[in-house]
C-alpha cells in the first residue's frame, strides 16, 4: 500500500488473531486495506467502502467494526479478530463455520467473512438468540446471493452447537 511516497507513514503494532504484527501505514489508509495489503490477511473483504455492506467487519477489542470506516492508525495496540482466526490452527472449522457449511449459509462467499465475525460477536454475548435477534444483527450486512434464509438457519444451528459444546 505504501510503496510510493511514504513520508507520513506511521508504524503500527497490533495483534491479529492472537499474533503480533508490525506494519506501516499512511494516516489515510483504512484498516481493511492495512489488513489486506500490509499484513496479507485477505480474508477480510471490501464491498462498499462506505460502511453499509458489512463485508469488511472485524472484531476490534471484541467489538464488531467496519474496517473500511476505521483508519489503520486507530487500531494501534488493538486486539483484532478476523475470519482467519476462527478455525483452529489445525484447520478444524469453528462451529459457526461448520454450521454455515452444513446449512449452505454462503454462496459466492464474498460477504461471508464479515457475517461470520458479527455472528461470532453475537453468540459470545447471547448464546440462544431468537430468529428476530439474528435477523437484526444480520441487518448490518448485505448478501445478494442467499436471501439470508440459510444464514439465519446456520446461525441458529451454530448457537446450538456452541451451547452443547459440540466440538469443532
Amino acid at each position, binding site marked *: 500500500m505504501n510503496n510510493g511516497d511514504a513520508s507520513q507513514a506511521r508504524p503500527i503494532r497490533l495483534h491479529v488473531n492472537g499474533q503480533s504484527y508490525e506494519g506501516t501505514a499512511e494516516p489515510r489508509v483504512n484498516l481493511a486495506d492495512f489488513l489486506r495489503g500490509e499484513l496479507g490477511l485477505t480474508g477480510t473483504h471490501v464491498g462498499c467502502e*462506505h460502511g453499509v455492506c458489512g463485508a469488511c467487519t472485524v472484531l476490534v477489542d471484541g467489538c464488531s467494526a467496519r474496517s473500511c470506516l476505521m483508519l489503520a492508525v486507530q487500531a494501534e495496540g488493538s486486539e483484532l479478530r478476523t475470519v482467519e482466526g476462527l478455525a483452529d490452527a489445525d484447520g*478444524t472449522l469453528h462451529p459457526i463455520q*461448520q454450521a454455515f457449511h452444513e446449512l449452505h449459509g454462503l454462496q459466492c462467499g464474498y460477504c461471508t467473512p464479515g457475517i461470520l465475525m458479527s455472528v461470532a460477536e453475537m453468540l459470545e454475548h447471547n448464546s440462544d438468540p431468537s430468529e428476530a435477534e439474528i435477523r437484526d444483527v444480520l*441487518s448490518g450486512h448485505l448478501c445478494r*446471493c442467499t436471501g439470508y434464509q440459510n444464514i439465519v438457519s446456520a446461525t441458529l444451528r451454530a448457537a446450538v452447537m456452541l451451547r452443547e459444546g459440540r466440538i469443532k
Partner: protein
Amino acid sequence: MKAPTHSGILENASPATGIGESVLRVEDAALLTGTARFLDDIPVVAPLHACFVRSPHAHARILSIDLTAARAMPGVAAVYGSADLYGQLTEWRMPLGFALAALPANTTPFVLAAKEVAFAGEAVVMVVAQSRHQAEDAAAMVAIEYELLEAISDCREGLAEAAPLVRTELDSNVLQRYTLGYGDCDAAFASAHRVLSERFWTHRGAAHPMEGRGVLALPEPGTETLTVWSSTQMAHELHYTIALMLGQPEDQLRVITPDVGGGFGAKFMIYPEEIAIPAAARMLGRPVKWLEDRRENFLSSIQERDQYWSVEFAVDADGHVLAIRGDMVHDHGAYTPQGTNVPYNSASSMSGPYSIPAYQLDVSVVYTNKVPVATVRGAGYPQAAFVMERMMDRIALELGMDRAECRRRNFIPPEKIPYTKPLKSRAGVPLTIDSGDFPALQARALAEIDYDGFASRRAEAATRGLCRGVAVANSVKPTGRGPFESARVRVLPSGQITIYTGALAMGQGIKTTLAQICAAHFGVSAEAVQVQAGDTSFLNYGMGGFASRQAIMAGSAVEQAAAMLRTKIIDSAAVLLNVGRETLTLANGEVRGPDNAAISLARLAMLWKGVPGYALPQVGDPGLDVTVHFHCDAQAYSGASHACEVEVDSLTGEIRILRYVAVQDSGRIINPMLAHGQVHGGVVHGIGNALFEWMGYDAGGQPITTTFAEYLLPTAPEVPHIDVVFQPSPTPLNPLGVKGIGECATVPVAAAVIGAVEHALADIGVRVAEFPLTPVRLLELIDRASGAPTGAAPSIEEK
C-alpha cells in the same frame, strides 16, 4: 487446511455422491476460512494500481484533456487518455457483444471516451500508479474541459421528434423500433366482451454483486504472454475480445477467472476496463490491477429494467384473454454493449404460461444518457411477467372472478405441451415450451399458502388495524441458452479426477454440482473431484455463466464426458486384467474385478499417458482425458408459481411480507440444498425490485443513488422465510432432465408481492402498476384512491 468434516448430524444434507442428494459444497472451505482468492487476493508481486477518471456529466462534449499535472504526481507510472492508446488498440470502440444482431456500427461503448461523454460514469482517462491512493490523487489532477450538452433521462422524452440526441453521432435516439405479434388482434378486440387497458412502469435496478468488477493483467516478457484475471461471467468471450482488441495472439493470452463474488448479470459483459487494463499492462511491462469500487459500480456496471408499457387486453365474459396489444418503451442507456436481447426477451415472453390467441406489441428501444442496459438476473422476463400478472388480477377484479381461477382458465393446458408459441427467438428459432404443468404449479402454491383459508386471516389482521392481502403470480422462463458448453474430464497420472469447464463459478455451487455429476460415474465422493472453471488455458471454447444455463449445459457436458471416460477406463481395465468388462466395478480410485483382480486409476492413467516403445492399453488416443461440448439450441422452460401474503399499514405505508411460497419447476434437481439456495436468492432479488431498489436519476441524467444508504438492497429483517417447493416436469432436452433455477425464481416476484399489496388495499381501491413500491409512494396511492387531498407530485410513470 483441513477439508470441512461431514459430521453426519445433518437433516437435509449429506456427503453422499448421487444425483438428487444434498451434497455439501466443495467450494466452502476456502470461502469460510478467508483463504479464497478473489480478484484482489491474487498474489502478484508489486502490481501497479489503476483508477479511472469518469465523466461527471450525463452528456457533454470533451473540449480538452490536460494530463500534465497528473503525470507529475508522486508514484504515477502512466496516465492515458484515448489518444495515448494509439497503436495499442485495433479499434477505439468495444466490439458488439452478441455480434450477430444487426445493429449500426456507432452503438458500442468506447474504451476511453475521446470527444463526447454520454453518461455520468463513462471512463475518460486511466491513471496507473504505485498505489491506488496515488492513482486517485493523480486522477484528481486530471483536467478535462467539458461543454455541457442536453441529456435525456426519461426514455419517453427521447422519443420526441425534437428531443436532443443522446450522442451527437446518432441520427435518432431510437435504436430499434419493431412490432412483435401474431394472430388477428383487431378481430379479437372487435368481438371482446370487455377491453381493459393500463399503463405500467417497471424500474431499472442494478445487479450489485457484493464484489465489484476487477481486472488484473500480468505481462510475462519471457513468453510474451499476457495473463488476465477478471471477475467475469464469461472468460472465453473475454479471451476472444482481448485478442481482438489488443491484437494479442490468442495463444499468448490466458484468461483466468478467480473466485467471483457474485455476478447476477453485471459480469455477463465485456467492459472497456477489461481492455484498458491489459493494454496498460502490456505497454508498461508491469502487472496492472483495477478494482471497481462501489460508487463506480453504481456509475458504470450495467443496469436493467426501466420499461414503460401501455397495454390493452381483450377478454371474454369468462375471463379468457382473447388478445393483447400495446406498446413498450425500453430504456436502453447510452450505448449497446451487448445487443438488445433484454427488450426482446420482455416483448417475446409477455404471454408467459398462458395461451393468448392474438398479440401485438410495438417496441421502441431508446437510448438515454444513463448507464448502459444489459441483463440483470431475469433479463427482461420480470418486466413482462409483472405486466401480465397485474393484468390477470385486473381482469379478475373487473369480471368479479377469483384471481387464481382467472389464471387457471388462461393457462396453456398441460396436454398441449410441448407448446410452440407463434413467436420466434432473437435467433429466429420457434419458442417451444418443452415441458411443464402450469395449473399444477399454481394449485400447489395456493395449497401451500392456504389460499382458501385467507378470509379468516384477513379478518384477524383487521382487528389489529392492518390490511392483509394475498396474491399468486406465475411465470415461465427459457433456460439453458446454447449453443454449447464445454467440459473436459480427466484422470491425471496421480489418479486425481479433474473437471475443466467453460462454465463459470460465481456462487451457485456449480463446482459442487459438476463434481457430483462426475463423481457418480467414478464411485467417489464429490469432494474427490477437482473442478477448474473459467480458465482458458485448459479448454479452447466455453460460453460461461448466464441465462440459468450451467447445470443444464455444463452439467450435461460433464455427464457425457464422465460416462465416456468411464467406458474407456472399464474397457482398458478389462483388457489389462483379462476379465469381462461386465464383471468390473469402478470406485474409490480403482477398478475391481473377480478374485481380487484390481488396477488403480493412477496406474491406468500412467499406462494411458504412454510408455516409450510399448503399446497403449488399447487402440485409441493417449490419456484418460475426454472433452465434450454439449450442444443444445432449444431451451428448457422453467415454470414458477409464487404466492405471497402481506400486511399493509395504510397509515404508514409499511409493507410486511408474512409468507412467501415459491413453487418451482426446474426439472430434475441435482442438489436440493443448492437448488433451494438459488430460489431464496432469486426471490429476495425480486423483493428488492418490488419494494426497495430504486436507481434514481434526475431529469438531467445525474444518478442520485450511488451508495447503499441511498439505494436500498433488501436486508435480513425485511425478508420473510421463503417456502420452496420443487415440483418437477423433467425436460427431454438434456440427458439429466434438468432445467434452470437461478433467474426463474426472480421473474414472478414483483408481481406476487405487489399483487398482494393491492389485494390488501382492495377496499380502498388502490391500483399499483409500477415497481419499486416504497412506503411514500404507497401512501400517495392510498391517498389518491381514498380521495384524500394530496400534495404529492405525479410519479415518474404518470408524467
